[in-house]
């Protein structure tokens, strides 16, 4: 490691970094704006100036921008040098010539990087006494607020939005001191990652509009580490509450998963918590009752002889386990269709037998060839799509290495690489949003998509089963894909369960195995349907269909699950009729809730502690954010109380989160590691708990004064070692328990630098969570799947159904968020133009499938496969692996 002298003190620093990164890693408070740890340097703001000296005899030195200078051995720099300091102060002085003095009414106030840097540089007096420049703001849609006067032109927004996230409707306009960042005209920011602007922007230009709706200063939030519940990737989040409602979701850094970012579904989906129709009270036959009464009624209900429990892929391990324990393992069913159930288990099996590595989002980012098979990532697992966007630059970037341009020198790398994109191949029913960075795109029916995958495997390894009847064109594409994968150092195959079909997953597994046999360091990603689909699969239990077939039921207990999303209305209705009494625990007011006799108000993620297992098999804990005043409680807690009273198993011994978790891991062998995900509830640092509120939290004694003037006793947390107030340990908590980022002088999210072992690397003490699937080969050797489907033949009179996913609308909970709801498209049916003779775009037709029927407008798409109809997932329920439907004219 090279030695860097900073103000004459020698430090060991890592090779390949720039001086700014080195200084921040060493803990120096060096201000910056335009540099971003994930986006690198461009040298625009000139804020990070330091002095550099030729050698120890050089006393004059010269100013340089630390973010633009690579670390070299025995370099000598000064951070404290008066000239460098003056310059840094002056940069703020310049920015302040136009920055308004509106901190008091600015959403960013108090957690503002510009404020922090202003204080850090010591700039305190204004010398500019002329008029400030002003701009008009734009309406950018439901997520992001725009206040251009605050702009300091660091260019981070466009660098994130365009360069990093592939957005094309935000840009820099005009020049000189009139540079403007926005859209061409008012309108919704279309990119799926727009919410990150609120964290990437170092001041209050782009802020979270949903927070603005019920604004609170960020230091007045009670916050807890959480896990995003809106897809299977398990991005780490921070949720913040005030006055009993969650106000915002922010990024929680995870070096191996989401890094510094979140997708808009994950950031803005939280508003489902605050939905008007949310279940907040216990209800018996539609009447609100108190908790006591509810408990008694449920105890009675579960004492019946035939009790069946239906779990949920969107509920925590603990809640599912509590239900399983309550009803007994033979009566526990996963609340998912037969198909989804089988796919989750298939994915689990492939991961367990995976001969190499299960790749994280971070390793996808460093892949140099990617093959995506039958999964529209941008809409099923958005952050994975963001990782793919970074990965396509890796191969072309090798030229930058050769030209000795360091990776962090972002603009220079982009200029050298230009429009070149590294190998990325996509096979799906539609080209998908990632097509703009793809080398090759194949579209076809789900069967044909899978066939291409099988063919690639066969090219790589002749022992893999061959595909009969492939066209010359498709063979040559398979050849091309195989060559790219075989020529890569770290190829990655990405697939998922979103199509509802196994073929693409089988084919992906074959490709992985074929690469493995070629001694490639290949990896696989299999995305799952929901945030805990894999966790549920690791728990054992049967599908919803099995429950339907299990005969009559006295009491049905449904855990956080809308059964109507998993099978046809007719089938679920019929099942409900079989059940004498239906108990539903949920927070969302679903169709299932409406059919229930007893409704228990379940805590959603913000009111709960729990563990989820993400698509790579990583167990991650989310913490309750705030103490609820009402009867809203974790499902597992409700069930534990009921179970204890009803004398079920050893449920009487369950006291808190930990005892549930311990019971779970001792009876669920695959979940063994889950107990070690976070420190135990008696963990203390210097005898203290970890505070959920920052020490600047205000109003604690006053906020309930309208109810009672005496300050209430702070709630105690039996489930974790966190406190609900600002009292507690002020230093950095263990990495799995970071409720917010703060460091002296760093009030904005940029303080995350201080929590990492090295800027941009893992959190101190290692990134949180625990991979439950690690034992490679322990579950038997992988084999080639041989069930290659026939080439898809369009049929007369009916169309094969393909599920089309949408980032907004396909996922159940986020669809209930007010802001997200504004971005949801109307349900539709998509068909190839040739299959729609006599139909016009937008015409209402009647669509029927598997006993369901809907009137939907037609979307014609000439590149959609013939003989297939696309239905939007989550807005229309499609069960079963292979579904067919019929389109007919609406009869007036």
């Amino acid at each position, binding site marked *: 490691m090279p030695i860097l002298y900073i103000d004459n003190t020698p430090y060991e620093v890592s090779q390949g970094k720039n001086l700014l990164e080195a200084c921040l890693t060493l803990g120096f408070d060096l201000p910056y704006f335009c540099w971003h740890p994930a986006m690198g340097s461009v040298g625009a703001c000139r*804020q990070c*100036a330091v002095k550099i000296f030729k050698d120890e005899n050089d006393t004059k030195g010269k100013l340089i921008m630390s973010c633009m200078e690579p670390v070299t051995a025995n370099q000598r720099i000064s951070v404290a040098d008066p000239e460098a300091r003056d310059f840094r102060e002056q940069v703020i002085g310049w920015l302040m*010539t136009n920055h308004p003095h509106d901190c008091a009414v600015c959403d960013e106030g108090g957690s503002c990087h510009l404020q922090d840097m202003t204080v850090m540089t010591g700039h305190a007096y204004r010398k500019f006494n002329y008029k400030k420049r002003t701009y008009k703001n734009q309406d950018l849609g439901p997520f992001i607020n725009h206040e251009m006067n605050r702009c300091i032109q660091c260019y981070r927004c466009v660098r994130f939005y365009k360069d990093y996230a592939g957005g094309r409707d935000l840009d*820099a306009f005009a*020049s*000189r*001191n009139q540079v403007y960042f926005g859209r061409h005209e008012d309108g919704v920011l279309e990119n799926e990652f727009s919410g990150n602007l609120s964290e990437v922007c170092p001041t209050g230009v782009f802020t979270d509009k949903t927070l603005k709706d019920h604004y609170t200063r960020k230091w007045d939030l009670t916050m807890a580490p959480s896990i995003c519940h809106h897809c299977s990737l398990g991005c780490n989040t921070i949720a913040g509450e005030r006055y009993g409602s969650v106000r915002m979701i922010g990024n929680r850094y995870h070096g191996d998963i989401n890094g510094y970012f979140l997708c808009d579904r994950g950031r803005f989906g939280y508003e489902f918590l605050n939905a008007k129709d949310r279940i907040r009270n216990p209800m018996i036959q539609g009447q609100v009752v108190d908790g006591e009464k509810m408990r008694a009624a449920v105890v009675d209900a579960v004492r019946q002889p035939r009790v069946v429990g239906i779990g949920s892929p969107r509920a925590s391990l603990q809640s599912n386990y509590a239900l399983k324990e309550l009803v007994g393992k033979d009566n526990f069913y996963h609340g998912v269709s037969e198909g989804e159930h089988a796919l989750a288990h298939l994915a689990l099996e492939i991961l367990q037998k995976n001969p190499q590595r299960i790749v994280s989002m971070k390793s996808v980012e460093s892949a140099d060839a990617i093959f995506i098979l039958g999964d529209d990532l941008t809409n099923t697992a958005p952050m994975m799509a963001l990782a793919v966007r970074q990965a396509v630059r890796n191969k072309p970037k090798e030229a930058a290495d050769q*030209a000795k341009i360091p990776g962090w020198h972002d603009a*220079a790398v982009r200029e050298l*690489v230009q429009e070149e994109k590294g190998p990325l191949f996509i096979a799906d029913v539609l080209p998908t949003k990632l097509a703009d960075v793809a080398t090759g795109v194949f579209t076809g029916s789900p069967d044909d998509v899978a066939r291409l995958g099988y063919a690639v495997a066969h090219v790589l390894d002749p022992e893999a089963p061959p595909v009969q009847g492939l066209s010359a064109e498709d063979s040559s594409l398979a050849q091309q894909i195989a060559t790219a994968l075989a020529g890569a150092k770290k190829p990655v195959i990405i697939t998922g369960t979103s199509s509802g079909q196994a073929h693409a997953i089988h084919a992906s597994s074959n490709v992985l195995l074929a690469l493995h046999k070629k001694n490639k360091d290949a990896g696989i990603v299999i995305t799952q349907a929901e945030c805990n689909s894999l966790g549920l699969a690791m728990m054992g239990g049967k599908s919803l269909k099995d429950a339907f077939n299990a005969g009559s039921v006295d009491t049905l207990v449904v855990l956080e699950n809308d059964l109507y999303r998993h099978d046809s209305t007719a089938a679920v209705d019929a099942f409900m009729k079989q059940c004498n009494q239906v108990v539903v625990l949920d927070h969302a007011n679903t169709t299932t809730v409406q059919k229930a006799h007893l409704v228990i108000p379940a805590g959603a993620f913000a009111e709960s502690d729990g563990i989820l297992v993400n698509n790579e098999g990583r167990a991650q804990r989310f913490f309750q954010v705030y103490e609820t005043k009402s009867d809203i409680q974790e499902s597992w807690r409700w069930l534990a109380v009921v179970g204890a009273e009803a004398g079920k198993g050893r449920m009487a011994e369950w006291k808190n989160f930990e005892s549930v978790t311990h019971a779970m891991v001792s009876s669920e062998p695959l979940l063994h590691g889950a107990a070690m995900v976070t420190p135990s509830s008696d963990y203390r640092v210097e005898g203290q708990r970890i505070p959920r509120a920052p020490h600047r939290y205000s109003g604690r004694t006053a906020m309930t004064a309208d109810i009672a003037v005496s300050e209430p006793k702070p709630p105690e947390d039996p489930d974790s070692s966190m406190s609900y107030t600002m009292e507690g340990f002020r230093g950095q908590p263990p990495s799995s328990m970071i409720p917010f980022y703060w460091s002296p002088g760093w009030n904005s999210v940029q303080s995350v630098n201080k929590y990492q072992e090295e800027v941009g690397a893992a959190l101190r003490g290692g990134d949180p969570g625990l991979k439950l699937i690690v034992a490679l080969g322990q579950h038997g050797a992988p084999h080639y799947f041989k069930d290659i489907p026939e080439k898809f033949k369009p049929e007369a009179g009916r169309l094969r159904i393909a599920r089309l996913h949408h980032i907004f609308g396909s996922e159940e909970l986020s669809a209930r968020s007010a802001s997200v709801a504004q971005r949801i498209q109307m349900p539709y049916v998509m068909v190839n133009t040739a299959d729609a003779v006599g139909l016009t775009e937008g015409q209402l037709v009647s669509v029927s499938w598997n006993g369901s029927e809907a009137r939907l407008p037609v979307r014609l798409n000439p590149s959609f496969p013939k003989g297939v109809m696309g239905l939007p997932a989550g807005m229309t329920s499609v069960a079963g692996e292979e579904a067919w439907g019929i389109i007919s004219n609406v009869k007036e």
Partner: protein
Amino acid sequence: MEKPLTEHIRKDREPLTLKEYEQAGGYQALRKILKGTTPKEVQTLVTDSGLRGRGGAGFSTGLKWSFVPMNVIGTKYLISNADEMEPGTFKDRILLECTPHQMIEGMIIASFAIQATESFVFLRWAYKTAARAITRAIQEAYDAGYLGKDILGSGFHLDMHLHTGVGRYMCGEETALLNSLEGKRATPRAKPPFPQISGLFGKPTIVNNVETLCCLPPIVNHGAEWFKKLSRTGDAGTKLYGVSGKVKTPGAWELPMGVTLRELIEEYGGGMQEGLKFRGALPGGASTDFLVEEHLDVKMDYTSVAAAGSRLGTGTVVVLDDKTCPVGFVKNLEHFFAQESCGFCTPCREGIPWVEKILGSIDKGEGRMEDMNLLEMHVRALGPGNTFCAFAPGAMEPLQSALKYFREDFERHINEKHCPWHTQHVSTSTH
């Protein structure tokens, strides 16, 4: 006196046709190098000739070329920087309008030296006459086999296109020029990597000034020693000098490198207009430091002007007379820089408009003494290396020297609360 750049220019200033140019010995240099000279030999010849870039920075042309990787596959580019927009500068215009073939021949030689196969002339929009001349000349050169495939049977291939800009001083800065040619905003790029390694479309690229390129055919024809001897001083060659402002006969002349400022103003410029006295001059365009009376005998070459505390820049002198307000003069310059700043980096984007405002208020008699400190601060803080590109340091050069040489005039504005020159100049509000 030899004038290799301008000797063939027609009296009526119509562009030399291909035929005329050939009759005057045109394209002989190209023929010469294509007969067995290696690219490296051309580079060495040009390095030996001592030719320094005429675009303002004065870097050795041969040395600059030598950084281009020679054994790479793929396109390389050569670009003629004809974006002349430096206030006070009107030298490239003459060459572009009158001897377009000499520049084209120079471009082919330079392309050969770095083995570029694509070339562009980046011409500023306002040079309409030049655009017509170059368009025709490029066509003629193609027709005669000087451009295109297998030039003169040598196997060397070069295409050439004319690109006209859409108005932005920054396009003259070589890396911003590259961005502009790529259809992007003309903001500069960080160096390193230099364009020689990663230039236009990420490929190795050389950007040379028009006048630099025009020097190449004569150097090839007559040799390095001859070129050196053209000069009166250590910096080789002749130079297109110009004088504007209130002199009797403003104009541009090709003269041996190293004529003095006095000669330029008094002999060629005809001296100051009746009743006016010389107070100072920008030796090479808006972004050079003032020279004043004590510098009149400074030799106008890179080394000597630098020793006098300024830069030769483009070698086109703007004269300040005693009836013109120096504050207004500098304010006009800073207005230009504030308008033309690309807006990429903070000090320039925010600092120069501030400077302009301060100068405006001093000019109007509303200045305060503290303003002088603020101006000084900007001069220091916008120095080389502190801003992203050389634009802002250039903008500070005239201000810095004005504060040094005309400080009293600034202070008089502040103390007397009005512009002492006011009767001469109606000071208009900023646009």
